[in-house]
């Protein structure tokens, strides 16, 4: 293993993966590029092996939970009223009639439990990955096609597993179809209520279009902002998508699942981006999505965003051009696109310009410490929120930002978190050995010296995870 090999290995693990774990720099130093590419060939790459409910099952369970809660509250308020009428405090009999005897169990409510399970599985996957290249790709697409748990908590985790993960090494067109027809997205971007003004349901209920999903699909998910589409395209695409809805989660068997409701669908042909799409029910929308997926503007948009995510906020145009060409040539084969990213020399520039967003940074810490075992997932989620990157809760449909300028002002708060985590983790670590595991040849002499001179293991660990070489990738 050559020093250059180790340096390239450390660079690769930070830039393409979730940063080095113990011994991983040495493990891939013979052929770092080959090791990153090999991550794409793993059986089941991108999938999560965990016992977790489907989005439909989760939505139904949460609906039942909330309905039961409501009934309990109603029962309690009835008993209270009866007691007040009788001029006494809440009677014992009424208390006993409550389903749980009036005692609330200490565990978090079901929606939060589900979210924590999903978050745990996801965090573990990233923290335990050998390299984590495919998992980084999952995170990228999940943010690109984001929804928000603030709006639909039950489906936040299932959505990623169902619509994103199966396609991260497949075709962009398939991911797009899966995403835009997923009940979580349809609910998040308000399409479940959108109906054609001239559809049967629209006429009967005096309701009409909601353009949200159509607009964000064009602007954020495919073509990109200011790529030439017009308001008429948005409106007509929204008409195409009417009837794409879900079955109410209250429905006991299929609640929370996708449904195309013909009754809500605007009848007739529509013209989107100059092309006429005959009315073929749900297939009309599928056809538009298929064309959007292979549109040159989409290829450019995705190429730019991917290169910016992995290499630099302002990526080399030559790299973007390479990715764009592969996207178009292969019909949006995402595996081929990321392969070309790893093969391109521009991706291996020694300058590490990207600042890790908070959540990825936390995973980096977990990969060299006992954080995974020592820090409960509730605390991880709280920390992510405190750092401005709450899991699956971006403030807007464009997801969390991916630029240095968005995150760098959070450095002081990150230091506070680092300091706090270090206090929990530093007892069992050898800080200088950790520098070798985490940074290897990337660590500057200054950084090594600063860590070696720290007044305590705790301070040393905090300084390590806040070192520029650790914060950047």
């Amino acid at each position, binding site marked *: 293993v050559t020093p250059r090999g180790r340096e390239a290995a450390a660079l690769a693990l930070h830039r393409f993966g979730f940063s080095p774990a113990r011994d991983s720099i040495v493990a891939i130093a013979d052929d770092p590029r080959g090791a990153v590419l090999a991550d794409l060939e793993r059986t089941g790459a991108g999938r999560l092996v965990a016992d977790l409910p489907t989005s439909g099952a989760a939505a139904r369970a949460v609906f039942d939970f909330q309905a039961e809660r409501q009934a309990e509250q109603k029962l309690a308020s009835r008993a209270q009223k009866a007691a007040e009428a009788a001029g006494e405090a809440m009677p014992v009999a009424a208390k006993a009639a409550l389903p749980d005897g009036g005692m609330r169990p200490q565990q978090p409510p079901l929606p939060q439990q589900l979210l924590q399970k999903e978050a745990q599985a996801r965090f573990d996957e990233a923290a335990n990955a050998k390299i984590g290249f495919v998992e980084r790709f999952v995170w990228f697409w999940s943010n690109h096609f984001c929804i928000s748990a603030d709006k639909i908590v039950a489906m936040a985790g299932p959505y990623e597993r169902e619509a994103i993960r199966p396609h991260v090494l497949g075709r962009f067109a398939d991911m797009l179809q899966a995403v835009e027809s997923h009940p979580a997205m349809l609910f998040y971007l308000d399409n479940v209520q959108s109906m054609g003004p001239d559809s049967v349901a629209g006429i009967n209920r005096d309701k009409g279009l909601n353009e949200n999903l159509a607009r964000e699909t064009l602007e954020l998910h495919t073509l990109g902002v200011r790529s030439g589409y017009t308001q008429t395209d948005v409106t007509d695409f929204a008409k195409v998508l009417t009837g794409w809805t879900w079955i109410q989660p209250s429905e006991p068997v299929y609640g929370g699942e996708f449904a195309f409701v013909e009754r809500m669908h605007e009848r007739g042909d529509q013209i989107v981006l100059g092309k006429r799409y005959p009315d073929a029910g749900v297939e009309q929308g599928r056809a538009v999505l298929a064309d959007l997926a292979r549109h040159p503007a989409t290829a450019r948009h995705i190429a730019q965003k991917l290169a910016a995510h992995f290499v630099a906020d302002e990526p080399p145009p030559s790299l973007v051009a390479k990715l764009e060409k592969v996207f178009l040539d292969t019909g949006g084969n995402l595996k081929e696109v990321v392969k070309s990213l790893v093969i391109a020399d521009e991706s291996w520039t020694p300058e590490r310009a990207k600042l890790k967003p908070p959540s990825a940074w936390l995973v980096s810490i977990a990969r060299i410490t006992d954080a995974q075992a020592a820090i409960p997932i509730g605390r991880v989620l709280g920390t992510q929120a405190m750092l401005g990157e709450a899991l699956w809760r971006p403030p807007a449909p464009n997801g969390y930002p991916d630029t240095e300028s968005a995150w760098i002002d959070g*450095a002081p708060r990150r230091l506070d978190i680092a300091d706090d985590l270090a206090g929990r983790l530093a007892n069992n670590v050898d800080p200088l050995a950790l520098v070798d595991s985490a940074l290897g040849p990337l660590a500057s002499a200054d950084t090594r010296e600063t860590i070696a001179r720290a007044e305590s293991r705790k301070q040393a660990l905090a300084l390590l995870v806040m070192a520029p070489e650790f914060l950047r990738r």
Partner: protein
Amino acid sequence: MTMTPLHAPSRRQLLLSSGTLFAWAYLPKLARAEGHDPRFLTFILRGALDGLAVAAPVADPGWVALRGDNALTLDSKTPALRLDNFFALHPAMPNLHAMFQAREAIIVHACATPYRERLHFDGQDVLESGLTKPVPSETGWLNRALGGLAPGGRVDPNGSKAFGVGPMTPLVVRGPAPVLSWSPQQVMPASDDTVHRLLALYHHSDQKLALALEEHSKLAAIERAGDMEQMPGGPKPARSPGQARAYFSEVAGTAAKFLAQPDGPRVGALALDGWDTHVNEGIASGRLSQLLGALDDALGAVRTNMGAAWRETVVVLVTEFGRTARINGTDGTDHGTGTVALLVGGALEGGRVIADWPGLKPADLYENRDLKATTDLRAVLKGLLKDHLRADERALAASVFPGSDGVKSMAGLIA
């Protein structure tokens, strides 16, 4: 707006931010048969405390020459507090002084663990493990001492209600005896010392990060000057010194409240960072002075909240090693050897500075730089464990401080 210099942090920032921690083991029936119910609290002061700045040898003829303007004396602008004919206490520690006068405090000077190198991590390992060398250890001397107390019915195995060894537990209390840990829930700001070290690194290598972190200090300064509302959900920014003092007292006091309870824990440990004063030490007024003041507050809070249990209490404050006898080129001190161990509590035979004083002449100094260690810290700790907690002398030499057969436990510390 003037920027608050980095070296004048709020007390709370320096002390609490660095992960205040409190852990203990239950010993409900300890020594009760003899009519005693002893309490034992250990403060680990990480970073190497400058013992000469805590208890100054004002009557040593070499003292002022050695430290110049940084030498505390009885004639200093803020005079040091007289302890005896030879030593005087830092003026920021009136509570400790009052305890000393009430015969409830002992200062052991020119004291050190057997460790003679100058690396923090290794020094802390020796200090907390109780071993003679910095070899990996999963247990600390305090915990092993508790294990040794089991025979004779002094430890009630059923009294070990809680067994939650968290990852934060300091080494000194880690081990087979059940430990419970407690720490403040919210995330504290990192200490100004850590910020300063990181800033120095950023200035060398990453100007953008340096700029972002500097804003932190500016905001903290503004916040200290005014009294801004706390950011919702985030770490609490530094508070004004008064509020910091109140908050710190609350934390230290909580430890004491636990120990004071009839069925509460009897042994605890608390680790405080921030003592690594290489630059602008601020002995008379500044960083160390503020740190010592906050530490003094902590001792006061412990005494108050112990209530009636104070008379059965011993608190011992120890650090991994001392600092250089002389001031270095940046108005600070570097890693040294001999330092102080501070003992407070109503159970002590106090009012004494215990020192086999080595002197301050160049030839007297260890390697012509550090205060020589003439008292083995293990002798002090063994004396306390033996006479206060009734630990067995042989166990102390065999398992608590292995390899300390030649180090006799110091007698007469407990009243």
